[in-house]
């Protein structure tokens, strides 16, 4: 059993990718490290357990990456997807560091594989974990344990003692150890966002948040983030901004993970509960756009929408956990979905009439588009006219929130007065808002976690030794 009365060099709160990278790098820098993971062992790792890849810059193709993805291209992508709402210095630092992360995590036991079937468009930019995010996490935990990092599960931190920007101790409540005060020379906060805290989400979203589904575990409640912000830490990011995708409305409230997601938007149209379209389904290549659809659906009445397509495209996207709802006519489909049949028929008829002839290719921005329709579908627009007609009901699926703690390039937390904290660091989703003001592209969350986790651990260890 871990001796919790001693003073640790580095206390890591959280148990995901960022936390483990921090714990490993702190330990490798010679620090004694304690990790407090709020979830039980099975659910350890926050959203990391549901991830599958990481976006890292690289100058040449590798065994598993099909071509180069330069720092410049990564930066251009980040600039575009955030609309410029990013800390340029931090973001460029992260992108530069991401190059070495590709090798560093392998040294920590993580294994790569080529991009998964059905995700070919990510094969150049994103490195996939062999066995997925939980396999990646298992490897990091094994390495941390071998190095002598102490890990406690079911570890609820009820309070943080912070004076003048200096962390002193954390109050732990845990089934075996009871309530105990944990002292450490430095703190790494890597406990994620507050996406599973519906009450907190409601402060910004109102009752709409009741209709949100949470893609990860119920343990991502943002309690550490809240404590830090209440104790003088400077915040960053818009509290309504988050990584949110359209997921199947039939998914469980929590922890449905990747398999509830729908990638069929570009192959059909999306209508709201009034059977009206509300956004360009063919705006851009799917991996660059999938993460806006959560917010789009969240903005619709009752936070529900329906992807409507026909039998000609059913094999164009990955098979889904929940089967599509089907009917021989649009009117019958509308009936099954609880939509107004006339309205749905009109929406589809208007769409079909606006479709211009073109050559379909879902791997590029093709010339299949609508004309004279609002909103337009600018690519991959083809008539929906091959029964049976099919639909997936979707709701906003929140992955993680962007409101966070402001940090500098050392991953060191900044206080409200702009001064760096004496001994507090943050990594992962809890500080993702520094880099991600809005928007998302596949794999960036893991890049933030690994890069800033590694830096935070190293800096915290150095801090503790001085």
């Amino acid at each position, binding site marked *: 059993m871990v001796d919790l009365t001693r003073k640790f060099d580095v206390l890591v709160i959280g148990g995901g990718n960022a936390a483990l990278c921090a714990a490993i790098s702190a330990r490798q820098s010679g620090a004694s490290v304690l990790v407090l993971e709020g979830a039980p062992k099975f659910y350890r790792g926050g959203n990391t357990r549901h991830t599958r890849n990481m976006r890292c810059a690289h100058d040449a193709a590798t065994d598993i990456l099909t071509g180069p993805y330069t720092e410049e291209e990564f930066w251009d992508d980040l600039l575009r997807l955030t609309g410029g709402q990013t800390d340029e210095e931090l973001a460029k630092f992260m992108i530069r560091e991401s190059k070495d992360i590709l090798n560093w995590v392998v040294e920590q036991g993580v294994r790569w594989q080529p991009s998964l079937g059905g995700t070919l468009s990510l094969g150049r930019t994103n490195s996939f*974990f*062999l066995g997925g995010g939980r*396999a990646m996490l298992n490897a990091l935990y094994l390495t941390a344990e071998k190095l002598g990092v102490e890990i406690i599960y079911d570890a609820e931190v009820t309070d943080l003692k912070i004076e003048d920007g200096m962390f002193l101790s954390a109050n732990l409540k845990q089934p075996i150890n009871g309530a105990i005060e944990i002292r450490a020379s430095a703190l790494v906060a890597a406990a994620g966002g507050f996406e599973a805290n519906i009450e907190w989400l409601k402060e910004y979203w109102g009752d709409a948040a009741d209709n949100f589904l949470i893609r990860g575990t119920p343990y991502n409640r943002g309690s550490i983030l809240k404590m830090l912000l209440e104790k003088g830490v400077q915040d960053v990011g818009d509290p309504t901004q988050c990584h949110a995708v359209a997921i199947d409305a039939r998914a469980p409230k929590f922890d449905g993970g990747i398999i509830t997601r729908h990638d069929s938007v570009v192959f059909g149209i999306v209508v709201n509960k009034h059977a009206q379209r509300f956004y360009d389904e063919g705006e851009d290549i799917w991996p660059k756009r999938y993460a806006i659809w959560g917010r789009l659906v969240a903005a619709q009445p009752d936070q529900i929408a329906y992807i409507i397509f026909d039998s000609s495209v059913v094999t164009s996207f990955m098979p889904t*956990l929940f089967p599509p709802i089907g009917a021989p006519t649009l009117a019958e489909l509308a009936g099954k979905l609880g939509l107004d049949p006339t309205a749905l028929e009109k929406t589809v008829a208007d769409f079909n009439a606006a479709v211009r002839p073109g050559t379909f290719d879902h791997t590029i921005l093709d010339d299949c588009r609508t004309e004279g329709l609002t909103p337009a579908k600018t690519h991959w627009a083809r008539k929906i006219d091959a029964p049976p007609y099919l639909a997936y009901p979707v709701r906003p699926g929140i992955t993680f929130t962007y409101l966070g703690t402001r940090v500098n390039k050392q991953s060191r937390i900044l206080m409200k007065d702009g001064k760096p904290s004496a001994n507090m660091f943050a990594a992962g989703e809890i500080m993702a808002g520094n880099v991600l003001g809005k928007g998302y592209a596949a794999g960036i969350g893991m890049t933030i976690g690994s890069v800033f986790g590694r830096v935070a651990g190293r800096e915290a260890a150095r801090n503790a030794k001085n």
Partner: protein
Amino acid sequence: MHGTRILEEADRLMTVCNSCRYCEGLCAVFPAMEMRRSFSDGDLNYLANLCHSCGACYTDCQFSPPHEFNVNVPKTLAIARADSYAAYAWPRAFAGAFARNGLVISLIAALSVAVFIFGFAAFNDRQVLFGIHTGPGAFYKLMPHNAMALLFGAAFLYAIAALVMGVRAFWRDIGEPIGMKTDAGSLLQAMRDAGELRYLDGGGVGCFNEDDRPTDRRKLYHHLTFYGFALCFASTCVATLYHYLFAREAPYAWWDLPVVLGTLGGIGLLIGPVGLLAERSKRDAALVDGARMGMDVAFIVMLFLTGLTGMALLLLRETAAMGPLLALHLGIVFSLFITMPYGKFVHGIYRFVALVRYARERRMMGHT
């Protein structure tokens, strides 16, 4: 709708897995799954036999129990796999042997040993049975070579015939729409994959057994067992050739090929099965088909006894114990032969056939 509840569950899991695909780099099961969007009974039996039970997909899965999606691929496919052995058994009347396989195998083995001992006692008088025999033809003083060859040849041919019928049923079940033929390239690929146990590897990290650490040594023990068995079989074949082609009668000197092969194989059959049993007893209960423990254990014990009695016979062949030991060894080997189509032995056959099918599918899909 599927034929059994376990196939229903396998279908549910493959639907979950096919919408996730995180495990596609771990083994052959998941790439084979991705070639399909729906799953017939035959498809599921194919995937079940393709699974080597390495456990990696369970440890890596974010949806394994206690998650509400309750994804446990190794256990579900293990049950479906064992069910499939019974479903393909020939003749159908013997399918029931899989139900209480441990008991069935034990009874047949005991009976077979008893028959050989009684037979030796009935056909030989005490001096011969407990006598010391050396030199060429020593064994055949107890049982004429032709009788031995006829009896074991018949048992072996029966086993092969029954296995071929089972494979035929399996190939038919999984063969559509690929067709009934295969090609040399796929066969060679499958022989390589089976020979090195390529998929008993957790995708490179190693297999999982008692917990979430890849510390499992089943691959090593399986190699010892399989190649031990193969060497013993080769020893028997060489000895038969010696006998009929060169008129050289057993027992042979310690340096002679049949003895060298048999000794090396026997050592493998002593260490391998003990290791497999040890790993089996440690294995996380969540991963195994508990109801089929008897089948696994019976087969492993039979292989161990084959090795043990063979080695004892080699060491004590110039003593009075040779007669009884020969009866014991022949009884064990005879029962091993006749129960081959009705026990865990078939796992190797069906898995190999599944690997052939997999190699073939990949070629047809344009993979290399």
